[in-house]
């Protein structure tokens, strides 16, 4: 009887989570309709969703598979630039170029992942630092290397949106909400299913997983590809909204830092952790920097948070929440392999 009950309550929790995701997305998508002039709120809403998408994408390779990537901005920037270039050269709408950017980034993830994901311990993390920086330098020097004017190097690529509807911030916000739903559902599905279980097994003990029949190399590369796809789609959204891209901001190490911070602080390896981390991060970026006029204060806060979390509560905000009632724990901190 208790097993039947627990199966029912598990199903209820899954449904509850799906409902919450849709509720968030729909609410945010409706903001411009409710109040046309709420530009600031729309901006905040965009960035919260945007950071959530990024953090969730990182979580797939860093949280589920356990391979920390310090260079994830490479995929973000790649997606942004693909969208930017496809618009400035071919006038393709971001709606069209978003999946293309994702696919290209996924391919890049596979190329980078096949040799590097074999590495043990901290070596993959170090390799990602190298890849992230190499990608940045590649884009900075792209035009020089190939003798073209595509990326416009350090000066940056400015997109003149003209009358393209997809560049209207309201539409971008709606598209972002859609992408958010897709990413959240995807991560929930991964975590609950066979793919996620395999990733967690690799995370715990790669050799044991291998002897239990898990094709570890293939699964890890796939995780990186999926992660890259979603990160790149966030890049596309950024290009559509900000309409200006430069290598320093797209590929900057500070972006890669943020990408690590959010999921780790929020709750590495959980579904909602990255969302908590995204909310925290955008709050700090937005609110604290307007109160205290020092651009380095956020970094100080994040550094201290990281230290505290690693030592005291490895599952971050999700872990803290999980210490409360049973149902909150089941929602926020399911055991590995469970939805």
């Amino acid at each position: 009887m208790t097993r039947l009950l627990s199966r029912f309550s598990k199903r209820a929790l899954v449904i509850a989570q799906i409902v919450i995701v849709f509720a968030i997305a729909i609410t945010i998508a409706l903001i411009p309709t409710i109040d046309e002039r709420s530009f600031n709120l729309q901006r905040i809403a965009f960035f919260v969703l945007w950071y959530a998408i990024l953090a969730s994408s990182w979580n797939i390779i860093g949280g589920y598979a356990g391979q920390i990537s310090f260079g994830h901005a490479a995929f973000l920037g790649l997606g942004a630039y693909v969208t930017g270039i496809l618009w400035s050269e071919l006038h393709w709408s971001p709606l069209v170029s978003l999946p293309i950017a994702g696919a290209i980034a996924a391919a890049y993830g596979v190329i980078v992942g096949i040799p590097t994901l074999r590495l043990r311990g901290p070596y993959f993390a170090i390799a990602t630092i190298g890849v992230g920086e190499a990608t940045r330098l590649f884009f900075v020097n792209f035009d020089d290397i190939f003798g073209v004017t595509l990326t416009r190097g350090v000066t940056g690529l400015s997109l003149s949106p003209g009358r393209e509807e997809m560049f209207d911030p309201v539409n971008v916000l709606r598209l972002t909400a859609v992408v958010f739903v897709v990413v959240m559902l995807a991560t929930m599905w991964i975590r609950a299913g066979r793919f996620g279980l395999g990733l967690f097994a690799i995370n715990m003990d790669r050799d044991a997983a291998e002897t239990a029949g898990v094709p570890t190399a293939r699964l890890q590369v796939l995780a990186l590809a999926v992660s890259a796809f979603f990160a790149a789609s966030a890049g596309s959204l950024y290009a559509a909204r900000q309409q200006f891209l430069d290598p320093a901001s797209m590929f900057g190490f500070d972006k890669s830092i943020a990408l690590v911070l959010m999921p780790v602080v929020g709750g590495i390896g959980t579904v909602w952790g990255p969302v908590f981390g995204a909310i925290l991060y955008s709050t700090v970026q937005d609110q604290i920097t307007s109160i205290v006029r020092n651009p380095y204060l956020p970094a100080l806060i994040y550094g201290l948070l990281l230290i505290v979390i690693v030592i005291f509560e490895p599952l971050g905000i999700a872990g803290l929440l999980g210490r409360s009632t049973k149902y909150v724990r089941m929602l926020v901190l399911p055991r590995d392999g469970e939805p």
Partner: protein
Amino acid sequence: MRLIEALISALMVAGLYATMSYGLALIYGVMKIINLANAGSMMLASFATFFLWQTFGLDPLAAVLIVAPLFFVVGAVIEAFLVRRVVNEKPVISLLLLFGVLLVMQAGASFFLGGDVRSVRPVYIQEVVHFGDVTLAYNRIFVFLAGLIILVALELFLRNTFLGRAIRALAQDRDACRLAGIDVRRVSMIAFGLGTALAGAAGALLTAVFPFDPSNPYGVLQLKSFTIIVLGGLESIPGVAAAAFVLAAAENLTVTLSKPQLENLVSFLLLVVVLVVMPGGLAALIRRRRIA
């Protein structure tokens, strides 16, 4: 001739790169932890050196003697209060922890000290010396010599003192050390302190060669030191020296023979290539030759 000048110049830079990387190699060897905060220590040390120069007119090379012991203490404190707790966990945990420390160091320093580009100008900064057709700057020579002295001192310490040998033993087998009566915790703390001190020394020496820009705190150099220790074989001090030269030479050749902007790209590509193709680095290559 250009080639020779490039190689000699590479040698000078290599000395600096090597000093930057010894600390990383040492800490990894003993604790199997990648000290991401290495660059942070270097940066803080540069700040300290600049402060000493500005306030007391102290030459950076002399400042090393103050800065290095200071950072030994910093490192020991970090180990005792933070790193020790995560030494036995998965490597990613210590990576994240030290990443947090790095952020705190970078942010903390910039926060308190502001963001202008500073320059240390020791007396001899403009002077150069000529060897035949080759021109060398005095400051680079001194920094190279300092790096050489540090290398020799480090090797002597590791081979001839009890503490040094204890550190090497710990690098080989922690459990055997416990059984042999070595105080693993104390030696670990000292090793971490020593590694941080080396980073501090590097930071001080760096100010004698490059203008110091707090808003770009050595991120690129940190990556170069990763490349170096990976190329050198992660735990081997002589390997670091050799790898530093290889990297400096590769960079210099790239700058001289092709586009200057690709200088940094070379180091990152080298990092990735080495990790994938030769994870044991140069040291493993040499070891394999010796056995076979």
